């Protein structure tokens, strides 16, 4: 498993580039991943989605239903794709330090 240096800390990533330990997440991690996910600049809405995902994950140990993510953050799915070009699963979950969703998704 590769390690990358983010803001002076060694962070472990899996082969898909997702964080192995969601607890090790910092805002610097989101900024670091944004570069690889085609996001030129982090906006307030990016952070809103990321913090919602992190809160949900903290409570339920899983990402929320995408429809719920959209509803609770007030972002349409189309807008989520504009914010995170690789989509809610690969893009926003990665930036939020959540594991890559598995199964038929």
């Amino acid at each position, binding site marked *: 498993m590769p390690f990358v240096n983010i803001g002076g800390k060694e962070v472990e990533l899996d082969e898909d580039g997702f964080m192995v330990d969601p607890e090790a997440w910092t805002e610097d991690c989101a900024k670091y991943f944004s570069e690889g996910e085609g996001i030129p600049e982090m906006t307030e809405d990016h952070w809103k989605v990321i913090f919602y995902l992190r809160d949900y994950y903290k409570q339920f140990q899983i990402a929320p*239903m995408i429809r719920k993510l959209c509803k609770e953050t007030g972002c349409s799915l189309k807008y989520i794709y504009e914010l995170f070009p690789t989509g809610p699963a690969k893009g926003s979950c990665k930036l939020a330090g959540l594991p890559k969703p598995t199964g038929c998704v």
Partner: protein
Amino acid sequence: MPEVNGLKMPAKASEKEMKNIHIDPVPDDQKVEVALQHLDEMRKKFRSFVMAMESCVKCGACAENCHTYLGTKDPNNIPTNRAELIRKIYKRYFTLEGRWFGKLVGAEDLTLDVLEQWYSYFYQCNECRRCAMSCPFGIDTCEVTFVGRQILHWLGMVPKLHANVGAAMEKAGNHTGLPKPSLIDTLEFLSEEIQEEFGVEVNFPVDKPDSDILYIPSSADFLLNPYTLMGAGMFFTYIGANWTIPSTVAEAGNFGLLFDQRFTQRHNVTRLLDASQKLGIKKIVWGECGHGWRAAKMYIPTLADRPVKWPIVHLHDETSYYVNTNQLKLDPGKNNHPTTLHDPCNYGRACGMTKQLRDVLSACVTDFREMTPNQEKNFCCGGGSAILFDDPEMYDLRIKFSAKKAEQVRATGVGANGDGYLCAPCSICKAQLYPMVEEHKLGVEVKGLIDLLGKALVWK
């Protein structure tokens, strides 16, 4: 790991991930020997496999019937050639002519390179069994893929996706890794959504004892397919069913069928039977999941390690019964979009479920147009057997595997105005088609069948 020695292949599970699914990967220097032992066991056990090894005359009828070959033009994706990757080994070690004349009769030594070839091509097979239908001998090449993947599993060569799903099933009771509180949270959210959109009160009981119906949803519905869950909830509420969803097996899929037909597949079945007994239910109703329905309908009777006293039916056996007996008031005008139907391969070719889908869909939409070919002759979506890999190389293959499907959808004209529906009542088909209808610019939205039924229901 998109390419090894020029072979396209999905990233493999790590040693740790393999241990999570109870396999100690075999060291490279022993792989060949161990693979041959397993191949020997398999040929002695499965006549369907031996038939595929012995009977093929290379007529080539399967070639143009395989969408993976049509999409990639890779000769190893011709079903008989894919099977040949094992057949040449079988010949070399288990036939007289192969032992004596080797390469002259197409026999070949097993090497690590050949095993990598197996890994690459058996995970480019969608296990859709369209080739089996076209074979004049009735050879089911899917059985060869099954054998190849099972041996690879025992060697420790499984895609990360499949291995992690197996581990999630054991840990959480579903493929997506949803703990019970998250199941309940999502279902409560959907109750609110139904109230808001349809103005009806629908509850989703979880683990409710003494329920009549045990509903087995696909866990992907909890992340990706809200209307599939909402539709099922609305249907059961409409007919006044006493139903529940089991938190210990909130999973219609069974990836065991796809890579490990021993422990992984049986584990899922055991969970189901435990939940059925514990909750005192009377009938099991299966959600929208193609391979899972095949695993349930065709394998549980022989895989179960105890008597199965509950009937197991599909959701659309139920919905079609209610539609055909006029017990549902439906307004197709609520789905006023040109709609075509993709028959999931495991419904049409493995379980004989084609008429039910049509009976329900025609009652729920205004403009239903069949694609051609259809029913048991339908082409796979290109995601079959969950080859839903998303690294750029494998994703590119998925686009190629779905080219035939795109052609079929286009020919119906449903997407001509950009407002068509593509009904695909299976979680793998949905996960494959959501991005593929965009890649191929088909002008359609992908919908489950129960999604459309839920929307069409007219409440008193």
